[in-house]
């Protein structure tokens, strides 16, 4: 679904990504792990078209999409759940979902997806008329995922969904990602929380200093002392 090859990104004179290559096979959850400043979010921004890479390529379903605009990437079936959720606080839950389908013109498809997403997140249906800003952190995270799903994506990019969530709701987050995977969604999960990544991802890549320093099955991550040590620095 997604193939990233030799991706390099600089902000001015500062190299953020040196040479990043990985793939996200269809129907799988792939996690990109790394500490602060490792370049995780920059990978996502480059994939979404918010940052122009100065080297390498990103292919979505076989098509080279390197350096395209955000709306063009979106039209090719890539949706993003931004860091810190960024729900539209003054809009209601229902309006947030509508906003998720902003770029779409097929009303029937949008209606179907609304139903699908609300079936996946029954709590959002209960609170459809509440302002998003009044939801709890866990609910806002759900809404951010649901909103991204409203664009009808084939690939979901999630930027640190576990940040700022109470430990008690982390389980909900894990369940959400599993449910999406069960529906056949392909997911690239950028995380700092090894536990969450190990619980949901098929494959994990560890990013450090703008390079991938380790790749392997996610389930083995938690037991792998060496990886954890290198990851924690």
């Amino acid at each position: 679904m997604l193939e990233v090859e030799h991706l390099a990104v600089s902000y001015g004179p500062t190299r953020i990504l040196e040479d990043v290559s990985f793939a996200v096979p269809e129907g799988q959850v792939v996690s990109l792990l790394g500490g602060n400043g490792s370049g995780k979010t920059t990978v996502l921004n480059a994939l979404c078209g918010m940052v122009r890479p100065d080297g390498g390529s990103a292919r979505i379903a076989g098509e080279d999409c390197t350096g395209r605009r955000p709306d063009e990437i979106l039209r090719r079936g890539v949706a993003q759940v931004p860091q810190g959720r960024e729900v539209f606080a003054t809009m209601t839950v229902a309006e947030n979902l509508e906003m998720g389908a902003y770029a779409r013109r097929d009303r029937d498809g949008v209606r179907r997806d609304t139903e699908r997403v609300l079936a996946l997140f029954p709590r959002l249906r209960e609170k459809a008329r509440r302002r998003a800003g009044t939801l709890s952190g866990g609910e806002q995270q759900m809404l951010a995922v649901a909103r991204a799903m409203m664009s009808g994506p084939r690939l979901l990019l999630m930027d640190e969904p576990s940040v700022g969530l109470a430990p008690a709701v982390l389980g909900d987050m894990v369940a959400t990602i599993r449910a999406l995977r069960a529906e056949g969604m392909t997911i690239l999960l950028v995380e700092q929380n090894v536990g969450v990544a190990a619980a949901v991802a098929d494959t994990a890549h560890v990013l450090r200093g703008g390079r991938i320093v380790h790749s392997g099955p996610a389930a083995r991550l938690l037991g792998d002392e060496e990886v954890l040590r290198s990851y924690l620095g």
Partner: protein
Amino acid sequence: MTVRPLWVGLAAALALAVLPLVANPYLLFVGNQLSIFVILAVGLNLLVGYCGQLAFAHAALFGIGAYGTALLKVHLGVPFAVSLPCGALLATAVGLAISLPALRLSGLYLSLATLAFAQFTLWVFLHWEPVTFGAGGFRVPAPSWPIPGVTAGIGTFYLALALAVLLTLAAASLVRSRLGRAMIAVRDGEVAAQALGVDLLRTKAMAFGLSAFYAGVAGGLQALMLGYVAPESFDLFHMALMKAMIVVGGLGSIAGSVVGAGAVLFLLEGLRAFKGAQEIAFGALLMGAVILAPRGLAGLLDRLPGWQERYLRAAPAERAPAAAVPREAPP
């Protein structure tokens, strides 16, 4: 009982419409100024309240509308029917032009850049004397209306009132439109909006342009009403006045813009005798609003039983039964 902001607004406009029959010239002036303030406040709220762009160029654009309208008449003899739209379009064009560099800035930097532009505009009004007549300003001939029996003042009064009603209704429907929703999304979460396919540059530029158009129309009307244009009417104090209207009225609320414009005008006229006290009073008003009523008067209006100002268009449940979103149970 449901109190619709629309009906209240139209009732107020109707009340204003009969004012010339009973009022003295001073009250007529205040009523006319109210229409102009409403246009200014609604336009500024589109940019600041709905799109979240804290710009300080509104008074300058108001001035460009006024100078554009009046100078076309004075220098070239263009009739007001043409010069007023031209003044408004000039303000719109300038608004769009400043939006281009401003789009790369946000927050405090946007404020500073637009403030610098406003000061530059004022400088041009003051020093481009061959065209703008400098600090003393200039007189604008009174408009003549083709309808017999209608004096210059009354004609301008009704034109301003009609435009205020029209532009307020247009804004209320705009914020429910696709563009309006994109503006609100940009305010609430730029990154998320962009990720969902909202064109940030286009949306912000539209907000700047629309807001400038409102300011330009208001400027043209101001020139018609006063028959006199001078730089001091478009300085920072007036920018603060406009900010006060939308902060006191309520950011992100059309009804709030209208009420805020009225509140500021009321205070401004009430303090007319105490020039020095005006600025202190407005400072106190602004701070009081920020501390005591952060949502402004619109926040109080929302507490009226049945008062509903819809910032956005109806939720899916109300349009399409297929998207079965349950109504919230009544409390």
